[in-house]
């Protein structure tokens, strides 16, 4: 990395490509004000809000995710990055909501399962899904099957996601899926599962549609599920 740390970079002097790259760096460093400033500059230059989201913010967060997985970044740093991304997104959200052509990929209901109150990973997944174009309904933590059923009724999601961080709460995901199956919901509703103690084998064993290893991967897989990718 460069030694000229204190040489200040004037964001608005950068051309588009340089600015996008700089924003990804700033996001990586958790610099909320700079990421927001960059977002505004791109919008002022006439960039489409969707393109700002995808090229600068989502791509930046994808890189963060890779370094987190490889043990280069740790939870506190990732949370700073997430805050920086949130800053940028808060500028984009109203524009995206208004624009005619921001076709939502559908609703994604997500929640941490009953007995578990870990929510950092779930929140990151929710943010990346929103970045990918889903309308995200976050049920929060400690959700019994009734909450998921109610949300399915109310929001008619395209996909439902469950998160668990404790070995003792992961089996509950199987309970929820079984209940969906009993009610004939499972045939129509793809269920994604994730959380650090899970793996593909476990997801298969409980009959989940898809296992999401991390937030970026989950967003990609979700797009594939709704048929909006490659």
């Amino acid at each position: 990395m460069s030694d000229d740390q204190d040489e200040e970079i004037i964001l608005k002097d950068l051309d588009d490509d340089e600015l996008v790259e700089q924003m990804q760096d700033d996001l990586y460093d958790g610099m909320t004000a700079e990421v927001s400033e960059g977002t505004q500059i791109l919008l002022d230059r006439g960039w489409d809000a969707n393109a700002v989201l995808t090229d600068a913010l989502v791509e930046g967060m994808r890189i963060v995710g890779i370094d987190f997985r490889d043990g280069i970044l740790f939870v506190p740093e990732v949370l700073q990055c997430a805050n920086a991304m949130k800053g940028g997104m808060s500028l984009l959200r109203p524009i995206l909501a208004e624009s005619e052509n921001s076709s939502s990929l559908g609703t994604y209901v997500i929640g941490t399962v009953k007995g578990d109150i870990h929510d950092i990973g779930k929140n990151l997944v929710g943010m990346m899904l929103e970045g990918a174009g889903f309308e995200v309904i976050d049920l929060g933590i400690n959700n019994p099957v009734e909450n998921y059923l109610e949300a399915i009724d109310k929001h008619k999601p395209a996909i439902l996601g469950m998160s668990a961080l404790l070995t003792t709460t992961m089996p509950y995901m199987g309970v929820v899926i079984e209940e969906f199956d009993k009610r004939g919901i499972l045939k129509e509703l793809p269920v994604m599962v994730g959380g650090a103690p899970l793996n593909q084998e476990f997801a298969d064993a409980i009959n989940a549609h898809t296992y999401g290893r991390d937030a970026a991967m989950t967003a990609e897989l979700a797009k594939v599920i709704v048929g909006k990718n490659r």
Partner: protein
Amino acid sequence: MVKALPRTLIIACGALAKEILHLKKMLGSAGGSIDLQCLPANYHNRPDKIIPGLEKIIASKGSSYERILIGYGDCGTGGQLDTFIKNNKNLLRLPGAHCYAFYAGLNEFDALMEEELGSFFLTDYLVQFFDTLIIKGFGIDRYPDLKDMYFANYKRVVYLAQSENEDLQARAQAAADTLGLDYEYRFTGYGELAFTIETFSISENANV
């Protein structure tokens, strides 16, 4: 003639070292056949490192022992530690999902969670290293705002104490204050850690 007890290795989380050494001492001659080797306590936050760490030690010195006690609960391995134990001979692990459960007692731990899901548990070890592991380890010193991101869903700190130590109690109370949570104290002693090691050390086979 008294038959010699089988040579036993305990491979444990570094956070249990002090307690296990104390138990070994209390067991007197039965403790003499036990050797302890620890993995770094910070594997706690990287459960994917636990099994590779165990494999390395077992490969290098496992053959000198007749049986090995894994000084871990499941600890977030998602059941993979149990599969590992099943696939290897003469291995056994501590009961329960994690140290909070085997210190409190499995049923008692469930009852505490039932009573208040928003409980954050401290042990002697965690109280002692609260600043290093929680405040610095989770970056709360550098980014104070993170405190709420981590603990917004929590209501109380429950100190599951292994020893009766007023200094630690004061520090646990201070930790709760720092997190802005209620404080509760439960003396547990070594709980099922003591029971498992005692039974293991006097039995003649691994299947205690």
